[in-house]
């Protein structure tokens, strides 16, 4: 009954990037189960332990902020605690998350090694310009050279996770322009000037 709308709900306002975990696998042993409390606010670490080391956490924070720096509309990813979400994601006990954990661990190891090779310091201690240069290296045109396959895949995955973590926060939703989730007395539909701008005035009446 819901599947009809689920595809729609998942598609609304979003693109082709899909972080869903396939649903038909058996329940994870240490997940939140099929009847969690969905009313209270949950924080990363509430249901399963976080697994990033301190050094990895520093690298993820630095990486997130290259991916989403602060600007005049919103703060940086780390200021909105996106690294906590990434740690929660890769630490989750469900099928699919384990592959992300492997990818992120390997990617972070590559990143630090490459940073030390190029600049003599870990990624988290590199300068802003050096971090940017390393991120550019991880974002080559497709297909990447074989030595960049892992870093490219890792970077795309962390970029997507950073976007999810960021744009689901109140500040991120505001930045994106989501203005719903408030009760209204009436649903007014699109503003008249928007309808006119798209030439849809004749479509409003049924």
């Amino acid at each position, binding site marked *: 009954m819901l599947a009809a709308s689920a595809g729609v709900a998942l598609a609304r*306002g979003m693109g082709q990037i899909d972080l869903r975990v396939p649903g038909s696998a058996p329940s994870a042993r240490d997940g939140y189960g099929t009847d969690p409390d969905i009313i209270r606010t949950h924080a990363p670490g509430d249901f399963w332990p976080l697994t990033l080391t301190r050094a990895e956490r520093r690298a993820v924070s630095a990486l997130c902020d290259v991916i989403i720096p602060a600007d005049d509309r919103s703060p940086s990813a780390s200021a909105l605690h996106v690294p906590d979400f990434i740690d929660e994601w890769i630490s989750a006990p469900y099928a699919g998350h384990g592959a992300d954990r492997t990818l992120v661990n390997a990617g972070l190891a590559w990143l630090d090694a490459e940073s030390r090779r190029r600049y003599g310091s870990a990624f988290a201690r590199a300068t802003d310009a050096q971090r940017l240069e390393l991120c550019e290296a991880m974002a080559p045109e497709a297909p990447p050279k074989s030595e960049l396959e892992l870093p490219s895949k890792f970077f795309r995955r962390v970029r997507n*996770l950073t976007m999810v973590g960021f744009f689901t926060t109140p500040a991120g*939703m505001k930045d994106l322009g989501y203005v*719903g989730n408030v009760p209204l007395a009436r649903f007014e539909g699109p503003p008249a000037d*928007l309808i006119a701008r798209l030439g849809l005035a004749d*479509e409003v009446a049924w």
Partner: protein
Amino acid sequence: MAFVTPSSALDKYDVIVVGSGAAGGQAAYTLTMAGARVLMLEAGRNYDPQAETPMFQTNDQAPLRGAGTPDKPFGFYDATVGGGWSVPGEPYTNASDESERQFQWWRSRMLGGRTNHWARHSLRNGPYDFKPRSRDGLGFDWPISYEDVAPYYDKVEMLIGVYGNNNGLENTPDSPEGCLLPPPKARIGELLAKQRGRSLGIPVIPIHRAVLSAPLDHERIPAKLHPGNLKAQRILAGDMRNRAACFWATSCGRGCAIRANYQSTTVHIPPAMATGNLDVLVDAMVREVTVDSSGKATGVTYIDKVRKQEHHASARVIVLAASACETARLLLNSKSNHFPNGLANSSGLVGKYIMDTVGAGWGGQIPLLENLPSYNEDGAGGLHVYAPWWLYKQQLAGKLGFARGYHVEFGTGKGMPGANAPYVSDAGGRTVFGAKMKEEARRYYGSHIWFSGRGEMIPNEDSYCEIDPKVVDTWGIPVLRFNWKWSDHETRQAAHMQRTFADWITAMGGTNAKQPDASGKKAISQGGYVIHEVGGTIMGSAPGSSVTNRWSQTWDVPNVFVADGAVFASNADKNPTLTIMALAWRAADRILEEMSRGNL
């Protein structure tokens, strides 16, 4: 009467209803409002939508930003309790290892069942849909016609509250004056799809959904639904006053704490409880229907899941409303000397002709919708418009290569951000990040449209469920084993869906990143995926070729009725829930008549 335990339940009831969803809720409502004493058995836990619905929670308050997991496949805030594609301790199996021959079975274990999370699409079957074999020679005709069911569609729409309007389109029935609530205005992307669909000949009209776009008329409706029954009128009027109209926030899949949409737990069960005639026993898994030496049903055996004890409940009439496949399972597991092949199975057809809805999707990015100023388009928490099937004449003339139609559901707009990252271009394969990514995310947000085709499947001999000879669930009850096969009618229909949607994207000014699947074999969703499974105890005009008669009463055991989708003899593209409720009401009316005549 209220929530009872095995020890506080009565020794005997007029009717036992197995299941508490759309069918069980409707049957219990109709029966108790007329004065029958009913025991409702629910295999899941009690559930209180007013206390348990996350109405304004944002995804950053959920683990994994609300993403689906094996524990909550439709996301953390989906209303489903205790289930999804798998229910712990209650497996099912598939006979084949090939995924295209497998069936996925969505279940919940909660009061109200799947009505708590469903899409609320409430479309009437049309006249063709009850007589498909007469029209194209395939499948089965129902023993009833649209005219038989129409009065019940009217009643259900008035009771639960359905928004929509009338368009006079072929096989897309209008509702009489006073049945529907006003449709909400279309969102901007929906208007664009409507305009551009016209060039393809596709009509876009308001969908019918069970959401209160305005308060129900509590002064008029109760007297129409319960003429001459002042107690029922008073209870229903009071209950309707306690249902708020939609406040245009929160996705309906979470349920609704203000009771603005239909759930069995917010619409059927509260007034039924208020009659004093309904007892509800939760955490009660029914194992079998019991019969006496004459072959008449006496009650049910059930397992109290909390105390892990088996009990028996007795009644004059048994109504099965456990969901199509669970009802078939229950009948097949009810073996006795009288019924060695399972109850009501002299035809050998219990479990046969399981149908789902054909599903295929396609999406695209629409440049015209980029960078639009934001407005609040949450709306009614689901679809406002859709496209009903529009090619009846071409299809009947044999021009399409598949025999049955589909409707189109589509989603657009700036929905609440969740666990799918906003779209960015990643042009040339280069991962966009930094200021450019932020700019692109803002630009493209809300510029996508996703089309979902929802089509009719023709019943076939290869799609059925049976008892697995080896596997039992944690309660020791033999489980279902599924067999599945789409015919060419369905795969060609899925191909037509994707081709049409790709053309629609083009008509909206978008470009298709890839080509649609011409065979339909990749496009078509897995059996069960759309969660519209019906059939398994189909109704018909003769005992040898069907399991129930035109009243949803089993041929073999006159005091056993099937109220859920198992009786469907075909599965029109229209979402089944409204028809399930209409038939459940009709079956309950028949039970009341037959009880008053002394026949039950």
